[in-house]
Each structure stands twice: as structure tokens, then as C-alpha cells.
């Protein structure tokens, strides 16, 4: 019994080494892998999921100190002034061409009305063809103008900034946790890393298995005393090792030094979770491999599975916003649990005491997916 176990391990090791060697021999492939784990993530440093220097053009019919004061408040980082226009037609044209995101329209007698306590209407035209940008721009301009009006009201009553204590109002104290500066610089590269891990975990094992089919090398393995598991597992193990190495490189060479991502939780736990996730997801890759006869088919199937997984698991969009049916479907995506745990460990410092349920979810799902992939493979080649 013992010797059979030794033999099993020895075969597993030999096949794993083989897979790794093959991977390392393909220069372009290695380049693509290294690129995805480093340069690609590095490039996200310029990307913000925030309103940033959105161009506002102004139609100022008042040209007063008050109007200038209001206009002045549309400033970076959220907005930048794109100049003044003479009529609303010009504004429309700029919006049409996408040269401006919003038009601020200040009515005549703005200052006079303000001082005399008469209500005055300020109009903001927002391009909402992109709803994300449009909503943000509307929300921020509403805040700016509202704040301006509130201060003007207080000023009329004689309450200066110093004596706000004497006015009944809610003083909101925001505390943003885990990312106090609301730094996209943490969120995006982490999401990108999780996306890259997913892409690799599906495509690499699928490609490795289909390649054996296409080149006929599988035949030589099938007449050997290897069981299907011994053909499959090494692919999963080697690709997992590559992905773990890539993740480590990405974490220590890009995320921490370039983006200053804090690693608050346990690194061993993070890598353990990544391993579990990669193995679970590679089951999908193996399933793809059983369905396809050639790599072209495999590639199409891979994006078919990959894209919804990446976009609908909360890596790039808030999961709370998903429509009811899909929110439940999300629990079938291993990436959903990985995101929870990835952010939990890296940014929140969460441990197993908190994440055990996600871990359980991923484990169950992983066993299911991987078991399914292996079973399909067995049935095809057993």
C-alpha cells in the first residue's frame, strides 16, 4: 500500500514538472503571463472609478461676485471649468460632442435675489448618456450648490462659520473604513489582480488539456498506467503554482510598493484562499477542455464563461445592485466568494472567524465544480 502511494506521488510530481517545463518553454506565453501579473496591473494606476476633472461649462447671466463665488466652487478634483459660453445652444453643442459633461446656468439677478432672500433657480444640464458619470456629476453639483445656498442662508441670518454651533443642524462625520482616502488606487488593482487570476485559472488548464488532445500526446498518456486523475491533477497543480507565483509577484512588486495596498490580514490565509479558488475555477477550465476539439473552440467557450463571471461577481460592480435572479446566481460564482475574502483579508484584516462562511461556500462550490470537471474528463478518457 505504502509503495503504491509513493508511486502515485512520484507520478504526480513527474507530470507536474512536465507541465511546468512546457509552460516555461513557451516564451510568448510566459511573457503574456508575466505581463498580466505586473505591467497590466501597474497600468491601472491611472484609472479612477470617480468623477475626476469633469468639464463644466458655465453660462453666467449675472456676472456678479456671488455667481463667481458659486462657479469657483466647481473645481478639482471632481470638476474643472471648461470656460464660459454665451447661450444655451452652444452648451448643447458641447454636450453633443462630449466636450463637456455638464452646463451650469446661472440666471440674471442671481446676486440680487440671493441678498434679498428671494429664491433663485440655478440650472444644471447633465449628460447622462453614461449614467455613472451623469449621476455622479448631478450628485456633486447638487451638493455644491446646496451647500452654497445653505451657507448663504446662514450668512443672511448673521451666522458666520465660526458660530455654526448656535444653529441646529446635523454635523455629519463620515468615517470611511478600510480605505480612508477612498483611494481607487487600492480597489482597482486588487480587482484587476482577481480578474487576472480568474482568466488564468480558466484558460491555462483548458489550453493545456486541449493541446494534449490536439497534438495527440494524450494517446501516449492513455496507454500508460496513469489514471485520469494523474493526467488532470498535475495540470491543475502546475497552473495553480504559476498563478500563486504570479500573485506573489503582483502583490510584492506592484500592489504594495506602487499602490501602497496595506496587507492587514494574514498572508498565508490569502494564499490559501487563492489556492482554493484557483483549483475550484480550474475545474471549469477542464470542463471546457472536454467540450472542445480544438483550441479555437476552447477559447470561445472560455470567454463565454469568463466574462459573465468577471463582470457579475462584484469585481467591478457593486453586487448589491444586481437584479434579484442574478444576485442568487452570483452565489454560484466562485469569484464572488474570492472577492469577499480577498478584500476581507487584504484591506479589512478579516480572519477565518469572520470569513468562515465564504470559505465554506467556496469550498463546497469548488468541490462541486472540480468534481464535475474531473468526472467529465474521466468519462471522456477513462
Amino acid at each position: 500500500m505504502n509503495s503504491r502511494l509513493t508511486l502515485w506521488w512520484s507520478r504526480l510530481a513527474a507530470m507536474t514538472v512536465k507541465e511546468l517545463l512546457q509552460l516555461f518553454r513557451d516564451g510568448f506565453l510566459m511573457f503574456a503571463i508575466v505581463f498580466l501579473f505586473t505591467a497590466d496591473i501597474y497600468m491601472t494606476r491611472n484609472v479612477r472609478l470617480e468623477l475626476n476633472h469633469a468639464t463644466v461649462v458655465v453660462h453666467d447671466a449675472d456676472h456678479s461676485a456671488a455667481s463667481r463665488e458659486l462657479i469657483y466652487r466647481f473645481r478639482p478634483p471632481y470638476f474643472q471649468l471648461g470656460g464660459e459660453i454665451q447661450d444655451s445652444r452652444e452648451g448643447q453643442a458641447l454636450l453633443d460632442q462630449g466636450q463637456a459633461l455638464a452646463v451650469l446656468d446661472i440666471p440674471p439677478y442671481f446676486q440680487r435675489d440671493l441678498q434679498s432672500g428671494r429664491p433663485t433657480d440655478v440650472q444644471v444640464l447633465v449628460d447622462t448618456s453614461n449614467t455613472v458619470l451623469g449621476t455622479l456629476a448631478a450628485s456633486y453639483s447638487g451638493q455644491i450648490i446646496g451647500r452654497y445656498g445653505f451657507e448663504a442662508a446662514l450668512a443672511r441670518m448673521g451666522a458666520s462659520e465660526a458660530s455654526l454651533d448656535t444653529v441646529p443642524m446635523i454635523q455629519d462625520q463620515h468615517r470611511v473604513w478600510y480605505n480612508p482616502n477612498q483611494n481607487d488606487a487600492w480597489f482597482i488593482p486588487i480587482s484587476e489582480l482577481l480578474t487576472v487570476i480568474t482568466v488564468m485559472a480558466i484558460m491555462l488548464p483548458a489550453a493545456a488539456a486541449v493541446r494534449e488532445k490536439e497534438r495527440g500526446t494524450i494517446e501516449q498518456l492513455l496507454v500508460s498506467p496513469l489514471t485520469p486523475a494523474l493526467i488532470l491533477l498535475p495540470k491543475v497543480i502546475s497552473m495553480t503554482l504559476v498563478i500563486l507565483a504570479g500573485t506573489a509577484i503582483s502583490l510584492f512588486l506592484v500592489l504594495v510598493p506602487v499602490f501602497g495596498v496595506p496587507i492587514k490580514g494574514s498572508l498565508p490565509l490569502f494564499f490559501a484562499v487563492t489556492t482554493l479558488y484557483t483549483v475550484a475555477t480550474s475545474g471549469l477550465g477542464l470542463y471546457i477542455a472536454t467540450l472542445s476539439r480544438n483550441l479555437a473552440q476552447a477559447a470561445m467557450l472560455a470567454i463565454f464563461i469568463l466574462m459573465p463571471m468577471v463582470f457579475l461577481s462584484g469585481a467591478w460592480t457593486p453586487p448589491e445592485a444586481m437584479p434579484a435572479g442574478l444576485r442568487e446566481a452570483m452565489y454560484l460564482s466562485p469569484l464572488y466568494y474570492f472577492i469577499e475574502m480577498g478584500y476581507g483579508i487584504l484591506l479589512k484584516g478579516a480572519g477565518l472567524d469572520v470569513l468562515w462562511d465564504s470559505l465554506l461556500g467556496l469550498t463546497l462550490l469548488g468541490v462541486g465544480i472540480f468534481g464535475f470537471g474531473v468526472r467529465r474528463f474521466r468519462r471522456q478518457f477513462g
Partner: protein
Amino acid sequence: MGEAAPLTPAPAVRVQGFGKRYRRQAAVAGVDLEVRRGEIYGLIGPDGAGKSSLMKAVAGVLAFEEGSIEMFGIRIDSEAAAERVKGRLGFMPQGLGLNLYPELSVEENIDFFARLRGVPAAEIAARKAKLLAMTRLDRFTGRPMKHLSGGMKQKLGLVCTLIHEPELIVLDEPTTGVDPVSRRDFWAILAELLREKGITALISTAYMDEAERFHRLSLMHGGRVLASGEPDAIRARTPGSVLELEAEPQVEALDRIQASLAQAESVGPRLRVFVDDAAPEAAVGTVAGLLKGLSLRDLHATTPDLEDAFVALLRRQRLVEERAVAKPRAGDGDPPGDDVAILAKDLTRDFDGFRAVDRASFTVHQGDIFGLVGANGAGKTTLIKMLTGILPPSDGEGRVAGADMHFAAQAIKARIGYTSQAFSLYQDLSVLENLRLYARIYGVARHAAGERIEQVAELTGLTGRERQLAGRLPLGIRQRLALACAMVHRPRILFLDEPTSGVDPIGRRRFWDILVHLARVEQVAILITTHYMSEAEHCDRLALMHAGRIVADDPPAALKQALREEAGELLEVATDRPLAAMALLEQAGFAGVALFGRHIHLFARDAHTATREIQTILAGRGIGLASVTPRPPSLEDVFVYRITALEQGEQRL
């Protein structure tokens, strides 16, 4: 071929000082040759000799560094210059049907090539009809190319290459991997087409016997041309005699001969020896002297063929590697246990209503070399796949290595070695990495593995190449690597599916040296398929497969004897115009008329009557007859006769 080629002053191809390097490593250097218009020019040489590089460069699909190539007087020295001649050129790269489109039908493939080559729409139909009829592919126009047999693929490739009626065609090993009957067919069609249109051809081959079909040829080795000229002239450069004999015990006889004569090999029960610069009588004396004390039978001299000459030429120029094959050491192998290695009983396999193997039964003993021959698609590979456990049989029983294939597939797998038809090792791993991988897959103990790998590497002559990537090895050496991987765990049984396909003569000789050693010394049972009938002579038993059935199963000698009894005496006819003579003899109703090299073979009940008849027929057409000699039939004669008879029987049904 005796027909005189029309000579024209401007050659079709002129190569001068040609050289090609890949990453500083020279593949070809200093090659000169000239192909005259209307000529069939051959390139022969071992794998890695630079044939493919040269052919690609001539076809204008490979850039090169040294020398010059002119085609029809146009110098091919740039991509733009190459473009100027491509319209007059047809090129078929190496690999059986690899340049065709497997998903497309026969007709779609031809149409694509025709339209790609700008054949006028009005002419496509006529040309296609003619070529399809000649190649007898006209019944299969709708069949996807991937479902064609090897021979049909090759003919389709030829049709596609010729559809635009090029002036020059370059064919890189067109007959590799094709069975003997299809090969003959291919050559006959090619010769007729070329003659009809006056097309010039540059063709490479791994089959030495095909060399006789070239007007002139160049022998290449190690990136250089060893000799160029007409086949007879090349043969004449290595004077000597070939002797054949049977000796007991064979291993010792071979050892003794090889101690003083470099060119000797065992062919099945017989030994074949080349004695340099000796007249037949002197050679017989020399060999008899060497083998004093052993029992000798049937020692006689025959005429050397081109393969003998080639080997001798290489040897004399000291270009052939010294035989690195390990000498058998007593006690290397396990003692033979259960004597029966493979037992097949009524093995049958159906695929969707198509019976690929039909009730195949045979027995292979330990230490036997069992050959399986037949046309492409006869069911050989399917049979092997069942025996190795890849494919479950639909019906029948089999025992392999003492285990029942129905219940103990896993146990069988651990005890056998297998090389598949297509090279199925990892091309991106090195020789050593491949060997190590298979050693560990088969559970060779770690401490023993290093020694065993060294041993098989030495045995298969891979020593010194351990670090090279498998994909970069020449084909013949790759096949030896496949064999090395298959035997690294000392299997009791080896299954080898066309292991020598496309391997050059030298490589094949070495390969067979190893197999003979394994069988005779280590008592390994070997089941092998091949398209080289000269190789099949090595087998102890030979099973001939046709349409899924085993139609004959006997030792080679018995097969030949049976042929003699059935068809009569084999006569070899030497004439100055073999092709024309062949047509006439066929018309006259002789059985089994076929071209072997430059001679015609046919069968006759009574040699004397037949000889007179032949003389009359040929003299009537003014064809010079050199000789009519009775010959012992070769296995190729057996194969061609049997398969042709079976095919004709089917057509009549």
C-alpha cells in the same frame, strides 16, 4: 526510367553554393545542383540532411543566406523575386496531407487551390475531372479530406499541387506514410502526368527503392551533397557485392561478421552483408571464412541496390556514426515467463455501423517480432489501440502480458510499451526530460532510473543529444526517442505503430538493430506495423490485414512460398523503356505486372514460355530487352499481389 528527358539549355533549377543556417547552426552548406527541364530529380538522404530546407528555398518559401538559386533563369534572392516565379511552381510540403484542409471535402480542397492559383473558371471543371479520374478520387468528391486514407490524401495533395499546371513541382517526401500499393499508384499517376505536360519535378523521398524512378538524383547527408547523377552512376561509385545467408546461431554470426565487415545486418532469419570492392565469388569466400564452424545455409550473392550503395558511400566517407547500439549482454532481460505474450481471439471493433476490425485472431510469443502490414485504413491502428487498452473491443477476447484485456486494463498498461503512429512525445521537452517523465510515469525506481535512462539512451543512440528539444530532432532520431521512452520501464511487450514512417534508411537500419536486439536477447515481444516491406522481412511472423480482417498470418518465408504456389514464378524483366513495356505486358494479360525500381516484376506459371512471349511482345514494339530473370519473390511482391487481388475481387462484386 529509360525514356530520355528532353534536354533544354536553360535548366529549370540551378542551385549554386547554397547554404542555410538556423540560429548560427548550419543546416545546409555548399550545395550545387541543376534540374533540367522535364526531368524528375530526386533528393535522398537521412533526416536532418537538409533536404527540406533546400526544397523550401527552391520553392521560394524560405529565406537563405548563402549561394544562389535560379529558377527558369530568374534569380531567387528576395521575397519579391520569389513571387515572380511562384505562378509557375507547385509545392507540396512534408507531412501526409498536412497542407490540405481536413474539414473540407475533396472537391472543395481542389476548388480552393484552383481559385487560389487563378485557374480560369472555364477550365477548372475539365482539369478537375481529368485529375480526379486519373487518381480514381472521382467517387469521393464529397468526402471530407480528414476521412480519406493516407494514399488518397497523398493523391489529393498531388491533384491540388498540379491543378494550375505548373512548370515545376517541388514535392517533399510525398510517399511517406503510404502503403506500398498506394505508393505505386501514386508514382504511376505522377509519371504519367509529368510526361504528358512536360512538367519538371524535384522530389525527395525516404524510400530508397523509389530512387529508381528518378532520372537523376542527389544523395544528401549532413547538409551536403555526397553524390549526384543517374542512379546507375551512383551505384557504380561503391563497387562491391552483397551476400545473403542464413546462419545458426544468428547473433554470433552477425557479431563475427561485424567484427571485420562494417556493413552487415540481420533481416529476419537471414543476414545481409556488403563486401567492399569484391567480386561475388571472392565475397562468398570471405564471409564463409569468417563464419567457419557455424552452420550456414543458402549463402549466395545478389546485386547491390541503391540502399546498399548509399550506406557504403556514407561509410566510405566516414559520415555514418559508428554503430552506437549497445551489444547484447547476457542476462540483461528477465527470463521469459509466460511464453504467450499476446493472444487475440476474434477481436472486433465497430464504429457507427462501420466494422474497423473484424474477428482478428493471432498469437505472439515472447521474443517474437510480429508484423502487421496492410493498406492505410485496413484496421491496424484500431487493433493496436484495442490491445493497448485505449479502445474497448466491441467483441472478442484478448490477453496481453498474461492479463485479460477486459478486466485488467490497468495491469496491462504497466507491462507494455507503446509508440503511436504520430509522434506523441512532448516536443517542447528535451530528450532527457521526456525519458525522465516516462521513467517516473511507469514507476521506475528513482535510484535505478538514472542508470536505466543512460542504458536506453545508449542502446538507441541518443547519447550526446540528451539536452536537445524533442521537436528539434530529425525524424529518425525522434522515433528512436519514442522507442526509448516506450522501453524505459523494461516492458515485456512493445506495440509500435509505424515507428519508422518517414525515417531514412540509415535510421531504419539502426532502429531495427535495436528491435532485433530487444527480441532476441531480452525476449521482448514486439508487435509492429510498417509500410516498408523491406523491414517486414525482419519479422518472425507477418499478418496481412485487409478491410479489418487478417487475411494471412505466417512467417515471411511461408508467405512467399504460398505466393509461389498460387501465382507461379516471379520474373524480373529489365528493359530500356520500363513504363512502355509495362503497359504492353499488362495488356498481354500477365499477372501482377508491377514496376520495382527500374525493373518490371510479373508472375508466370512457366518461366520459359513466358520469357519467349515477353521477347516477342517487346521486340514487336522495338523495346530493348536486357534480361528476364527468375527471382525469389520479396515481401513487397507478396503484399502488392495479395492486396491488388483482394481489391480487384471487391470491385468485381
